[in-house]
């Protein structure tokens, strides 16, 4: 059995950290032998996603229980989904907390602690409710921009003439694909918007080479997200990946458009 304890220090005599995601260390303890491993909590220095990083660490260490003063509902949910029980509302040193756990003290819930036990069934009412809540939030986040794009496409349909579009997208497979990939690399956001823009452009007579390159580059090449990608994965990785993806947006668009033109039109 393995227990992860959110701690302020790297040993068993350290006090429990307040939050699971941002405490300085995670101490992974074998409660039978009290052998432990102190790991610097990756969430402690994270600007965002601290709880998730700590949860990923606990899951990768295959712990059975997490003991902490506080864990957010989202983090708790991810731990429970991975089969890890969570007990919150705790205080004291790491050693005292593990010993109290082993004595079964927390099962009586006398000190205001809360125990969340990982179920084996996978789906229950709470899981469905959480999934509904997450989906509603994702959907609500998607709608404003989507409505803005639809409004913009309405203007586009009404005000941009076919001649104006033809001056950019000439019908040449090579040039159209290149332009599509360029626009897709600059534009960003939920890909649903690229489908709407691509679909409307197609109705206006823009070639599938341009439309497909725009759709592929929209997600795979991210000039707007480049600073965040550099910060997370390194400058060289971000530059090389985006450059290679730009080339592949073109390489994927050409055969896709040829197949579409052959079988659909």
């Amino acid at each position, binding site marked *: 059995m393995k227990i992860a304890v959110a701690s302020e220090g790297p040993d068993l005599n350290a006090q429990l950290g307040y939050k699971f995601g941002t405490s300085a260390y995670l101490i992974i303890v074998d409660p039978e032998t009290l052998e432990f491993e102190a790991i610097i909590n*990756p969430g402690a220095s994270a*600007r*965002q996603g601290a709880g*998730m*990083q700590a*949860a*990923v660490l606990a*899951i*990768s260490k295959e712990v059975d229980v997490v003991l902490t003063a506080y864990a957010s509902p989202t983090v708790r949910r*991810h731990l429970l*989904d*991975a089969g890890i029980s969570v007990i919150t509302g705790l205080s004291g040193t790491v050693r005292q907390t593990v010993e109290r756990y082993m004595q079964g003290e927390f099962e009586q819930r006398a000190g205001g602690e809360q125990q969340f036990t990982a179920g084996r069934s996978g*789906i229950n009412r709470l*899981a*469905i409710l*959480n*999934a509904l809540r*997450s*989906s509603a939030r*994702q*959907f609500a986040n998607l709608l*404003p921009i*989507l409505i803005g794009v*639809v*409004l913009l*496409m309405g*203007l586009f*349909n*009404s*005000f941009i003439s076919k001649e104006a579009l033809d001056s950019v997208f000439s019908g040449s497979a090579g040039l159209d694909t290149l332009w599509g990939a360029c626009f897709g690399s600059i534009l960003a956001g939920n*890909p*649903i918007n690229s*489908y*709407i823009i691509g*679909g*409307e452009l*197609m109705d206006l007579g823009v070639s599938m080479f341009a439309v*497909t390159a725009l*759709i*592929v580059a929209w*997600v*795979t090449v991210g000039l707007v*997200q480049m600073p*965040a*990608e550099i910060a*997370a*994965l390194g400058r060289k*990785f971000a530059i*090389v*990946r985006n450059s*290679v*993806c730009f080339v*592949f947006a073109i390489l*994927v668009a050409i*055969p*896709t458009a040829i*197949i*579409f033109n052959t*079988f*659909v039109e």
Partner: protein
Amino acid sequence: MKKNGKNGKSWKSAIRFLAFPAIVLVIYLILLILMPDETIQAFKSCGGILRSLILPLCLVFAVMLLLNLFVKPAQIVRFLGTGAGVKGLLLAVAAGLISAGPIYAWYPLLKDLKEKGAANSLLAVFLYNRAVKPFLLPIMIVYFGWIYVVTLTVLTIIASIAVGYLVGALVKERAGALL
């Protein structure tokens, strides 16, 4: 104090989300005064687009719900970091296909994976496969049809492996990387 901070943040977030449609609406109002006929035509065109989106958007919500119910980011990241060779490659493809949410939410997790030794090639494969969004396929099918969606999906997955190989070869891997 903390509550005020949170409220301020949610206001900023609401403004950020609503700014774009609000700006487009202001453009509509200006155009309605200057060119009323064309602007009314634009509104009608929007109505047509929105009507065609209602059913696929319902499907989008249903697939989103299923993915949220069965697919957890922590699990995806966990199995993304565990495989090597062909198994690792297939896991990276699968993780990219089923991953959802904005890319910003994934960067901290990918950074953590990279620091633990995940190969650049696998990270590139994962990021490329995010181009295929299962929950958005209903919208894509409405616009472009089945043949297009299947072709693009298959070619994207094949291209992801080539992109992964190239990124892995061009960006120097650290010793002990997974692929």
